[in-house]
């Protein structure tokens, strides 16, 4: 049986993955894609599902811990931007993302 914290962590990790996909869809909608309204609709639906899951996660975790784990969003979004949107993600940008991830983890670890 999973502990409450483990369930909360799992839910927030799922949220991070959904955030990556949802944000890519939203970005697609403003890139002048054909049927932009479909991209935006799917993006909104995915982000709404993420919102519901995150609300449940807050019942299991402190907001500090949930917010810290949700910094995985950064890695997820950057990776998907590189792979799915073919954005130019330079080494400098990756260094920035990793520093932010470490920083947020440090802040939340003491919260």
């Amino acid at each position, binding site marked *: 049986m999973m502990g409450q914290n483990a369930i909360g962590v799992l839910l927030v990790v799922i949220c991070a993955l959904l955030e990556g996909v949802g944000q890519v869809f939203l970005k697609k909608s403003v890139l002048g894609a054909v049927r932009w309204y479909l991209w935006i609709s799917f993006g909104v639906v995915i982000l709404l599902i993420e919102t519901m899951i995150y609300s449940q996660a807050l019942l299991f975790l402190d*907001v500090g811990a949930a917010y810290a784990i949700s910094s995985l969003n950064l890695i997820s979004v950057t990776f998907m931007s590189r792979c799915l949107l073919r954005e130019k993600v330079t080494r*400098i*940008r990756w260094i*920035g993302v990793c520093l932010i991830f*470490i920083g947020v983890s*440090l*802040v939340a*670890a003491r919260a």
Partner: protein
Amino acid sequence: MSKKKNFPTRLAAGLLLAILIDTALQLVWKSAVLSLPNDGSPWLNVQAVLHSPLFIFVIFLMACQFFNWLMVLGNADLSYAQPVTSLSYVSVFCLSVLYLKETTDLIQIAGIVCVLAGVWFISQTDHVTHSSERES
């Protein structure tokens, strides 16, 4: 480091607004979730959400965030804009220390410095990838 192109004022304003709304959202959302009855009934929870002023405010903030975010995405790469909005971690931390009188220590301050350094690194990259530059 790549040479920076002109940075639009509209994008700067959009990013600032995104950080401010995200900060408010994080603080209000937790209060809203805690105000729900904990009876395990999803239907009663839905009813409570629809009648809770805090949740209505959360939804309002999310709507503002959504339209502002679309404007930001129209002016910048997703992999640029998303990390920059991490400055909301710094603002939430500062508000907690200044107004909620929460205690802090060197580890947390080191974390804040890392976040600021990370955002600085990202700000040194171009905010938009042009079609000819898209990686294969």
